């Protein structure tokens, strides 16, 4: 469970003036929930995610993460792929396992399984500069999944993918989520993606960054083609879109 109590973040702007990236946010994310955050550019989505990850300290408020007995509780898919340019696709995906002391054979098996899942077969030995932007992003997703963290934070992970691959990755992600019961916090610009994937959607607005509304998306699971035909799915999308204006 992730508990965010009155967490805010203030940065120093270009001229040293304070910038409120995030005005106090209260949010409780139960274990196993799929939560999406939508909002216009600059409203503090990445900032909130980075605070949850411990990459940024809140200016005020309190963050509690209950993930018992795991060495590395958090997987993070950054907005950019952040692959190591001298490592092959396989070695990049295996990187957290290698540095975490997982035996080579086991790490290889996991990495190969993930490569298949994200559709990068045949590119195991390619260096990042030999991959397309979308392929790099998929490798980064596989890397975040490699050590099976109970909490997965994803910052616009599918933004660089074509629609078809994006749909496929959405379904893969839902399948992983169902199978592993991970807590997932997912940042996206797509209201459709948010409605399709999530248990709960947080809509944010900008300047200053704040939570505008929170919705429980009680569409039935498992989600699939039928979900996209459900009138309520379209109602959710329309609501989010309206609130984003």
């Amino acid at each position, binding site marked *: 469970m992730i508990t965010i109590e009155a967490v805010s973040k203030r940065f120093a702007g270009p001229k040293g003036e304070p910038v409120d990236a995030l005005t106090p946010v209260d949010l409780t994310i139960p274990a196993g929930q799929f939560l999406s955050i939508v909002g216009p550019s600059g409203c503090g989505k990445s900032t909130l995610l*980075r605070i949850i*990850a*411990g*990459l940024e300290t809140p200016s005020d408020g309190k963050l509690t993460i209950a993930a018992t007995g795991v*060495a*590395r509780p*958090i*997987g*993070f898919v*950054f907005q*950019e792929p*952040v692959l*190591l*340019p*001298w490592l092959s696709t396989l070695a990049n995906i295996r*990187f*957290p396992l290698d*540095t*975490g002391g997982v035996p080579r054979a086991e790490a290889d098996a996991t990495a190969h399984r993930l490569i298949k899942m994200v559709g990068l077969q045949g590119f195991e030995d390619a*260096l*990042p*500069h030999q991959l397309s932007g979308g392929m790099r992003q998929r490798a980064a997703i596989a890397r975040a999944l490699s*050590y099976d963290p109970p909490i997965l934070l994803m910052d616009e992970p599918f933004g660089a993918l074509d629609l078809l691959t994006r749909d496929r990755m959405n379904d893969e992600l839902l399948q992983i989520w169902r199978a592993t019961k991970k807590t997932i916090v997912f940042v996206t610009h797509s209201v459709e993606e948010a409605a399709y994937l999530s248990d709960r959607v947080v809509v944010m607005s900008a300047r200053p960054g704040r939570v505008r509304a929170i919705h429980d998306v009680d569409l039935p699971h498992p989600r699939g083609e039928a979900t996209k035909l459900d009138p309520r799915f379209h109602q959710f999308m329309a609501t989010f879109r309206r609130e984003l204006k």
Partner: protein
Amino acid sequence: MNAPIRALLSLAGFVLLWWGAVWGFSIPAFLLPSPGAVIDRLVFLAINAELWRHTTTTLGQILGGFVIGALLGIGTGAAFARLPRLERLFTPVILLVQTAPKIAIAPLLILWLGLGPGPKIVLVAIVTFFPAMTGALTGFRYIAKAYRDLAQIVGLTTWQRLTRIDLPFAVPPIVAGLRVATTQAVTAAVVAEMMGANRGLGYLLTAGQESSDSPAVIGVIVILSLTGWGFYELVRFAEAKLIPWRSKA
């Protein structure tokens, strides 16, 4: 047309021009000898004056000084990147030594260390030190924040971050620094030899000048150019091997 053939053709053209100029303008041999005269002279020196031994002496000094300077420079750069206070403390001294003309340091080194290989190696190490240090400082200091975040998320230890992320990222600027250092290293070795030595290519240059032996002087210059060039290409080769994602990008 591939690179070696192009280089060969370009060189052949240059030699041809040289020949043509000597022939066409009847330049006296004591000013500009023909390529043939230079080669003859080099062959003579090789047989009678241990040209090979002079060459290996200079090469050894360049290589020894280069390795020492590179290692010290990389270590210092890495330390400075981690400890900015240390850098601020030493920067004035380093700048002072760096801005002093290296030719001016050579006589002092010879006074201190004598006519042997010592002062040459030290001078080469000094000129190699600065570009190596600057490269390492840049490389270790400016690692993109995103990679520090990655290191934190996947829980790398300090040592793992140093060896698995910081060091590989520092390689390109370090190698770039070393590339700059190669030409300076050759110059430094020769300058130190010209100021006081009893062997080496720099010593041959001085001896050739004193006896107005222009074919020998030009011949030694050619050997030195080839040495510098080969050295530079060696570092470039290492660069391509070490940084495949750069050379192909």
